[in-house]
């Protein structure tokens, strides 16, 4: 009878050496009620004694927990991608609708403002054509949604990719993961590819013999590229992309935050900018 009961335990049918199988049982197994598992495990011969039981349990639970956490963090990079794409969509359509609103409002009032700003101005008003006000409120709703998605990304990106989020900022980190497809793909790309992610059109044009090779893709939005003077921007983009690649790799393979990376990047950009000034 004890053997029947023991068969419900995490250790049943698992060779104590097979840590992977034990971890899987811990992750996916179920039982309605607990039992005296240490005793049953020893009785069933799965382990020689209670100390061995707990040692095995420790290894198995640590591995199971680590697998679950890693798997979830991997899945979280997908969520981040959906969030950043949704954020961009909300911003884009809010602006498109705001253009329409601007045209419409302008036909009724020469002094009407324009864009999302104007939508925010007349939302909730009862001095304007009700359909305009209603449209303005939808636009404000979409920009609010984009803002809330940004907050979501800011909260989640450091969990998914702590180093990348620290170096790139959460939103750019999410965009890079989105452009690569997932954190794994980003981690495996050479830093030269990371440098031009988001500039695929220009890159393909260059490869077909049109135009110059692009110096930066979406990383242009980073202050270290954008605010570096044009002559040194290529160097800054290369330096930033290099560190971002390393950050993505650490995030993918270990997940440990490394403050040194950020400090190195700061020093590197400082040198590039100083060089630019002295020339």
């Amino acid at each position: 009878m004890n053997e029947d009961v023991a068969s419900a335990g995490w250790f049943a049918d698992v060779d104590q050496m097979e840590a992977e199988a034990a971890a899987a049982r811990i992750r996916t197994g179920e039982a309605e009620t607990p039992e005296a598992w240490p005793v049953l495990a020893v009785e069933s011969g799965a382990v020689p004694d209670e100390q061995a039981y707990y040692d095995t349990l420790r290894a198995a639970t640590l591995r199971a927990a680590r697998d679950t956490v890693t798997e979830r963090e991997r899945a979280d990079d997908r969520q981040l991608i959906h969030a950043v794409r949704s954020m961009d969509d909300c911003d884009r359509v809010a602006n498109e609708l705001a253009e329409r609103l601007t045209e419409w409002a302008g036909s009724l009032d020469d002094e009407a403002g324009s864009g999302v700003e104007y939508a925010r101005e007349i939302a909730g008003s009862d001095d304007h054509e009700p359909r305009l006000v209603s449209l303005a409120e939808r636009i404000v709703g979409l920009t609010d949604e984009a803002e809330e998605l940004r907050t979501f990304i800011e909260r989640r990106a450091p969990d998914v990719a702590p180093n990348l989020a620290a170096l790139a900022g959460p939103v750019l980190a999410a965009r890079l993961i989105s452009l690569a497809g997932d954190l794994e793909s980003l981690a495996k790309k050479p830093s030269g590819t990371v440098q031009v992610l988001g500039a695929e059109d220009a890159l393909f044009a260059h490869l077909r013999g049109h135009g110059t090779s692009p110096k930066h893709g979406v990383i242009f939005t980073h202050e270290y590229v954008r605010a570096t003077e044009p002559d040194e921007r290529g160097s800054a983009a290369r330096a930033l992309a290099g560190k971002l690649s390393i950050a993505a790799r650490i995030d993918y393979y270990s997940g440990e935050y490394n403050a040194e990376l950020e400090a190195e990047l700061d020093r590197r950009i400082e040198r590039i900018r100083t060089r630019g000034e002295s020339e």
Partner: protein
Amino acid sequence: MPESVTRREFDGEERLATRGQPVYGEPTDGDWRLWDARRSKLGAMFELEMETGLEDDDHVLYLGAASGTTVSHVADFAGPTYAVEFATRPARDLLDVAESRKRLFPLVKDARMPERYAHVVESELDAIVQDVATSGQARVALENRRFLAHDGRLVAAFKARSEDVTADPNDVFEGVLATLENGYEILETARMEPFHDDHLAVVATPK
């Protein structure tokens, strides 16, 4: 209070301490590590001199282990300690804490679904320490009662705002105790001020 939990002087003040490897940057004094009652519900219960019934070498199920701060102190005095935490980010920190302890078993599981870990956690436990901050905290205690020995102890902290942010905490706590009494005999309760606002500490035993 368990024998291995003592009061020692830190910065001229008598504070709780356990003996073990430091894990989260807490102040130490030789082998002893400060246990800050303001950062730990269980620590606060000791400071409030509640009769938790907890003893050295107890077999313990800890629900809501979060980043593992408190559970690391529990593992210092207790025997086998099962630490349940569902959220990904704190679970990653808990993993590091568990690596530093020989008999601390991390379980990335939902405390509301004990059947997902009843194949791992042993029966007849001496104590459940509970600090989950989701709604339905009393139900979590009832669902996990299956792990306790008949004379085991539930040592739980209930957060009013997790149940209802708008209700009077006293009303929330009354509801919590009424639910608990479906499976537990309440031995002692205490409000956790000044250590934790709007929290109720409860010590109970299965009935």
